């Protein structure tokens, strides 16, 4: 009887663990194993262990492209998070302004991009906005008398295009988060600040920001991870199979994907995957500790 009781939770969890074992644990272990071999197009079945060669190649040889991909990823995450938090803060403040009667309407409309299926949004932007022949952006540009621009053919414009699209897709969530956090602030804090004659910036720096920081920190960190791991936007806009646009932005995720599915460098791709896994775990431990300290 007692043994049966002990086994019950495991029995309940067994199906889920089986699934997780197949889809998550096995791929990680297998990837770790392949990262130590020379598996590639020419050694699809007769690959053998080569030690840490792949890791050396990724980390020590500048021409492997991994180090610059890390740089691009960090820049991408920093730019997106910075702009996103900044814009979302002011938009949420605006939404909470006294006397704004249409607040609910604005909120619903601004939520729209969040509700759209992500791949549909990306493809719609690619086809309807950025396309150099038929896209709306170039229609506006030519209507204003400019010459057609090619948004996705070079790295810098393509990076900006990806950033704009990412902002469009990710801002709604951040706005709602900050909006929720703003409503939890005690109004009496502002009243006493008004009495002291504090202006907008002083209220922001000394009341609003410190109050909302602990509330939005978890979702901001979550968004930072999603941005860091962002694949769809860059892949669908610039490097779809058969329709490369010319830009060669490479974040670490697209780098790993390309080495596996385009250039068939499975060993290298696996090594990079394990490195990415390590980086993400390191970040999570780091941010978790930060969050805990802030709360205590």
């Amino acid at each position, binding site marked *: 009887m007692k043994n049966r009781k*002990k086994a*019950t*939770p*495991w029995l*309940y*969890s067994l*199906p*889920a663990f089986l*699934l*997780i074992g*197949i*889809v*998550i644990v*096995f*791929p*990680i272990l297998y*990837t770790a194993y*392949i990262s130590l071999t020379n598996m590639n197009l020419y050694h699809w079945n007769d690959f053998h262990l080569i030690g840490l060669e792949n890791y050396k190649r990724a980390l020590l040889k500048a021409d492997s492209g991994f180090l610059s991909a890390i740089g691009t990823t960090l820049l991408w995450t920093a730019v997106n998070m910075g702009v996103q938090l900044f814009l979302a803060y002011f*938009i949420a403040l*605006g939404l909470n*302004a006294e006397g*704004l009667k*249409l607040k609910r309407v*604005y909120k619903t*409309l*601004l*939520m*729209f991009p969040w*509700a*759209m*299926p*992500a*791949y*549909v*949004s990306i*493809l*719609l932007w690619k*086809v*309807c906005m950025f396309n150099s*022949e*038929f896209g*709306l952006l170039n*229609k506006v540009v*030519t209507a204003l008398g400019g010459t057609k621009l090619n948004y996705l053919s070079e790295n810098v414009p393509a990076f900006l295009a990806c950033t704009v699209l990412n902002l*469009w897709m990710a801002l709604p969530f951040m706005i*709602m*988060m900050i909006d929720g956090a703003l409503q939890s602030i005690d109004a009496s804090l502002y009243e006493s600040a008004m009495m002291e004659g504090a202006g907008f910036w002083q209220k922001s720096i000394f009341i609003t920001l410190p109050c909302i920081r602990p509330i939005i920190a*978890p*979702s901001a960190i*979550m968004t930072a991870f*999603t941005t860091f791991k962002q*694949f769809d936007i860059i892949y669908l806009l610039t490097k779809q199979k058969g329709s490369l646009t010319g830009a060669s932005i490479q974040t670490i*995720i697209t780098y790993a*994907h390309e080495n596996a*599915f385009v250039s068939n460098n499975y060993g290298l791709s696996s090594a990079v*995957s394990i490195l*990415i*896994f390590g980086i*993400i775990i390191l970040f*999570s431990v780091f941010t978790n500790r930060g969050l805990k300290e802030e709360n205590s």
Partner: protein
Amino acid sequence: MRKRKIRQALSLISLNTVFLALCFITLVPVLYAFLLSVSDGSSAFAGGGGPRSFTLENYRRIITEEPFLLWLKNSVVLSLGTMVLAMGFATTASYAFSRYRFKGRMKILFLLVLLNAFPQILSMFAIFRLFKTFGLLDSNAGLMIVYAGSMCIFSIWNLKGYFDTIPMEIEEASKIDGASDFTMLVKIVLPLARPAIIVTGVMVLIFVWNEYLFATTFLLNGDKYTLAGGLYQLQANDYSRSWSLFTAAAVLVSIPILIIFFCIQKYMVSGLTAGGVKG
């Protein structure tokens, strides 16, 4: 006093203008896509002015000339199947983690978060090889396993977080009445946890509905394609001809998701953050 009122009114007007502009900018891509979908292809892409004549021709063509209904059926089967599989497994597991205290409980919960850090895209290659060995490529069952497994950790954490908030006393009372563990789970805990189960289930549903990468990599046969896979293909094919079709398909695919989203909108924020993990 009056001066202040005028100033306040002026700032409200300018704030409203800013928000109207903001909403407009937000909706422009969607509105433009919609306009393209209801105008005939030749005038829409002719340049110069915008779309001119109103027509539902693109919608008729996407439904009758492309295998849209087949894709729709595949998507519905796949997403419902995945939802049942993932929710069935995750509910029992999260119940165990919420209600029983056993050795290694916290360690496993922590390990699950850690495992979740591995980006799903990077495991595609390993799963591809595994499925090739076991003949699971190009099958709905294979994709269901992948999708359910990918959403399992998220679902377990999310549901466990909610189960933890349901007081144990209710269950203890029914235990005295002689109910077994399983009947208790089905008859008492599940109805109480309905909001969490709905939100988690819908998240799984939306995830599968929107997934294109595994669908296009693992399904080699065109007539197994889901909406996401089909749409991706439509867009990747020869473009100027199929673009107006593509925008019509995009509108059709997005509508159910938009409806679901705005129905559960108020749970969205809390539903996503309660568990603290997201893909």
